[in-house]
């Protein structure tokens, strides 16, 4: 029996955009992101990076992988070096950079993820779960990617760790202006940060739009096992009971202003 993991995917990811890729387990989001840096090759169709087909014979895949950085799910499982710093050096070293540049990049990357200097020469296995994940993300950042893809970077973290990681990513993106694709199954996580949401279902793109446009379809989202942020539900319920609020709201802050305005008016 033939089974297509991905079907009819047509996406353009412009430079500098912050994208949330959402779908429930098995919807094909992880498969999709692995196509973006050439780890998987499509059975039919093409993937272009800066206008060049990445599956052309003379295309430099190694360079592509340094430009399109992919952080896997549970990235801390890939740590292997004796100390944090050398692990982060692994990526830039593979790019053939000299020692000085490698170490500079590793240092900058560890600073970018907000890890304190005291941890740099500890074994990565002695760190806490959240710290390990930061180190792993730094390992990809040290290659100075133009596009950063994170596959469920908050899986298995507590709410505090989750917020810290997401805030860090948002800050990073503001500082460097790089393109970020955030894969998640939780609307709640991404709603606050992203410019655009791509919803995947059964290997196909179901919605591809700005968050507020996507959340308008909250009934359909529920049908495929996803949910809009809780704020959306509250605003819809308020609207129904006669309060004149804006239902296109995506964050708690906006909701607060809208409710206050409605009460005043």
């Amino acid at each position: 029996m033939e089974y297509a993991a991905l079907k009819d995917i047509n996406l353009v990811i412009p430079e500098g955009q912050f994208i949330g890729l959402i779908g429930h387990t098995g919807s094909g989001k992880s498969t999709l992101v692995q196509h973006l840096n050439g780890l998987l090759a499509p059975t039919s169709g093409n993937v272009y990076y800066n206008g060049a087909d990445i599956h052309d014979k003379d295309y430099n895949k190694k360079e592509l992988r340094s430009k399109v950085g992919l952080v896997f799910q549970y990235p801390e499982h890939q740590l292997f070096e004796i100390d944090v710093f050398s692990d982060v050096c692994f990526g830039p070293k593979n790019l053939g950079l000299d020692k000085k540049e490698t170490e500079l990049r590793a240092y900058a990357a560890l600073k970018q993820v907000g890890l304190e200097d005291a941890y740099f020469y500890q074994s990565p296995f002695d760190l806490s779960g959240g710290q390990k994940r930061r180190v792993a993300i730094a390992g990809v950042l040290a290659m100075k990617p133009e596009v950063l893809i994170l596959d469920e970077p908050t899986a298995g973290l507590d709410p505090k760790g989750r917020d810290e990681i997401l805030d860090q990513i948002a800050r990073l993106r503001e500082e460097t202006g790089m393109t970020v694709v955030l894969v998640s199954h939780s609307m709640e996580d991404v709603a606050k940060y992203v410019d655009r949401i791509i919803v995947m279902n059964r290997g196909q793109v179901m919605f591809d739009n700005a968050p507020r446009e996507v959340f308008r379809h909250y009934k359909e989202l529920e049908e495929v096992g996803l949910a809009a942020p809780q704020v959306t539900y509250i605003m819809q319920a308020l609207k129904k009971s006669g309060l004149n609020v804006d239902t296109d709201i995506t964050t708690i802050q906006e909701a607060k202003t809208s409710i206050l305005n409605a009460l005043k008016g």
Partner: protein
Amino acid sequence: MLRDITLGQYYQTDSVIHRLDPRVKLATTICYIISLFIVDNLIGYVIAGLFLALVIKLSKVPPKFMIRGMKSILFLLIIAVGFNLFLTPGETLVAFWKLRITKEGGRLAAFMAIRLVFLIMGSSVMTLTTTPNNLTDGMEKLLGPLKRIRVPVHEISMMMSIALRFIPILLEETDKIMKAQIARGADFENGNLIKKAKSLVPLLVPLFISAFRRANDLAMAMEARCYRGGEHRTKMKPLVYHKRDGIAYGVVVCYLALCIIFGKILL
């Protein structure tokens, strides 16, 4: 990339061979392997081949599964055949440069090849038609008498079944870690032998760590369910012999007798 290993993979279907008691299948496989080393003439190998073909036919496993399993021993096969072919002393048939093929060497090489192929095929029939759990159950029962001389039979079979269960998990894990390191610019394919061996460190260290972590978790989960070895442990599906198992034993005995008569005594 690592998925074409047939050994230890179960092929799901319903056939007489699948329904046989695992003890029968284990005993048959051992008998079959022994028979391959008893016979040393062509008739014997024809009998062994026919027996194998019959079992494969009855098992309803597509023959291409067996052939896929052969690929993994191709290298071993070539070496074994090569050494036998060129290094056996005797009457020279062909000679060129420093190599010479003798009559005895040719014969030995051919038999060696047949033996190896039948050996692997025979044991893959067993693993393809028996679930790993069934297999280790059968082993535990067959080795039962050894408990008297304090061999930890239950523990051994439990280790076996856990090991078998973990093969696919670890393969998947390997694949995942490999991809993650490739995404960080690692190169597993190019370079000389030393470079290649070195490039395995970023793969093996995380793999071992995850294996230990899984082992730890499993041990904890087993203890939480009061596992304490084989003593007083009852089975949900105890192994019971049926009529077909008796018939199978009969067939195996007949086969062994045929092998000894035609493959050894005659000629």
